[in-house]
């Protein structure tokens, strides 16, 4: 039953993607509410899915890779809905929808939704740690999206080849300001997420801890370099993409090792 909500949600994101592509191709794109509403509706369906699944499991629904991917997609949509209107970045929704579609589509198609034989009882610290870390990943995903937009715009300016999308993307300065703010938010949430992991009462696999701290150090280094003005905005944007790619690999690894160790 809850799977239908997920399919409906994926359809909403697909509509947002198709709508953006068509409008950009015909040159009729205007920063209207359509994408925001489509993503908002998709988010509601995602929430309904997670709520039903959570009730069935009696816990936060992040027990297997399928649920983790859906929860991550939910986080990305949530962060977009929170920061999108505030940052007023044209086309951000148009870039967010494909990522969510990709994450959710992959979760739906790949055989990831296997029942997880959890042997350790979940506690509130563990759930807080896992869910907050995933929300932090959602913020890093938005920073990655802003990074992609920055590089796309920068490339056009550098090569003097201005395509139709050039006139719809936000200015470089605004994108860089958004990247910086998103990195700080993501880093703060991730820090709290990691620290809360030490209060779970369960010994976490060493490899998980090392990988999570490595990712934390990577983002700390990016922010430090940004703060000290050691890095040009273009490199910060590129590092946001690298950082989120690393986060995705790490997420896969953590979920995989958790399943091996029968952790929630």
């Amino acid at each position, binding site marked *: 039953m809850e799977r239908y909500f997920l399919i409906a949600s994926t359809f909403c994101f697909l509509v947002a993607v198709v709508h953006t592509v068509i409008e950009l191709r015909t*040159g009729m794109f205007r920063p209207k509410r359509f994408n925001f509403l489509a993503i908002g509706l998709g988010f509601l369906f995602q929430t309904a899915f997670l709520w039903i699944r959570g009730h069935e499991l009696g816990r936060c629904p992040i027990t297997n890779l399928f649920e983790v991917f859906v929860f991550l997609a939910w986080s990305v949509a949530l962060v977009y809905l929170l920061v999108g209107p505030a940052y007023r970045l044209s086309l951000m929704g148009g870039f967010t929808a494909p990522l969510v579609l990709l994450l959710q589509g992959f979760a739906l198609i790949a055989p990831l939704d296997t029942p997880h034989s959890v042997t350790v009882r979940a506690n509130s610290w563990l759930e807080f740690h896992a869910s907050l870390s995933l929300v932090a990943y959602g913020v890093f995903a938005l920073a990655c999206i802003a990074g992609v937009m920055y590089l796309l*715009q920068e490339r056009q*300016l*550098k090569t*003097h080849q201005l395509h139709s999308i050039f006139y719809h993307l936000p200015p*470089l300065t605004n994108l860089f300001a958004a990247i910086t703010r998103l990195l700080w938010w993501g880093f703060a949430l991730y820090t709290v997420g990691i620290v809360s992991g030490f209060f779970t009462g369960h010994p976490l696999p060493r490899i998980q801890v090392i990988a999570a701290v490595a990712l934390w150090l990577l983002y700390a280094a990016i922010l430090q370099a940004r703060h000290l003005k050691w890095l040009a905005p273009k490199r910060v944007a590129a590092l946001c993409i690298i950082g989120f790619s690393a986060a995705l690999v790490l997420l896969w690894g953590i979920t995989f090792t958790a399943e091996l160790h029968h952790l929630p």
Partner: protein
Amino acid sequence: MNLFCIGLSHHTANVATREQFAGNATAESIARDAGCAEALLLTTCNRVEVYGVSNKGVSTDEIARCLISDANRNPDSDAPVLYRYEDNKCVQHLFRVASGLDSMVVGESEIFGQAKKAYESARTSGAVGPYLHRLFQRAFRVAKQVRTHTDIARGAVSVGSVAVELAQRIFGKLSKCKVLVLGAGETSERTTRALVSRGVRDLRVSNRSLDRARELAQAVGGRAVPFEDWAAQCREIDILLTSTASEAPLLTSEILAPMLWQRLDRSLFIIDIAVPRDVDPSVNELEGVYLYDIDSIRSVAEQSLELRRQQVAAAEAIIADHVTEFIDSISRGLNRASQTPEQSSLGENPLRASEL
């Protein structure tokens, strides 16, 4: 009731011919002399057009005689340059004109203001009645819709506007940008004014002649910088606009690169409109530097025009919908007026009943 448009434009006549028709005629005089119920005269540097509504047939020659400034000239010899559109063709033509589709620079917005001004002038003089009122109000609505729903007005097509557009795509609001103008020529003055009009406040002007620098600085509300100090400004500024008469490049990667280390987190936009160029092309390879010389600015303008041309079909589709809708609504009005004679007696013009 016949609606028509008679005129000439850059498509059909050169400027010398257009000048002959842009005489002293007014909408009021045309309505009176040609015997039109309503008339409106649209005169711009690229077109002279008369929009009229008449119960009787008004010939192109009659309108030409009303327009032509030289009384001794035979208007028949100019007849081929004049075009004539009637009824739905006339409606379509006006919608295209107001939307900038018929302009020399496709999508330009100046024509919209000129059409509004022409309408206001004709309305004030009493030459515009309900038909032209309704037609022009619809034309303004269509023009706005075309601009809002297509990219027809996107992109800049002149040096000044390209510079401003690019600067805005890099920095967003220009009010906090620091601009150095190197060389105080006419083009740089125009471009500087375009930047000032978009909010630039911190302006520095440097020129070999300090007096000329002071003169321009005063004109645009900036401050003059001695020519020997201009390079050091590159540590602070966001936009460099250069147009000196130097034979060799003034700014090279070797000069700029060490300064960029001190401003790694900020972009530098360089507009080099000098020929020969003031800035070595290799500067564009430096990180965070966006160099546009006169050729690349022209290329951007060309791309913008191409982008606008690609939008013409979408704009034409919007216009076609409005033409059909407008003609239908007018026909419905005429039918209603003919079915209720007591209503048509409200005015001389049967259309008037439907407009009231």
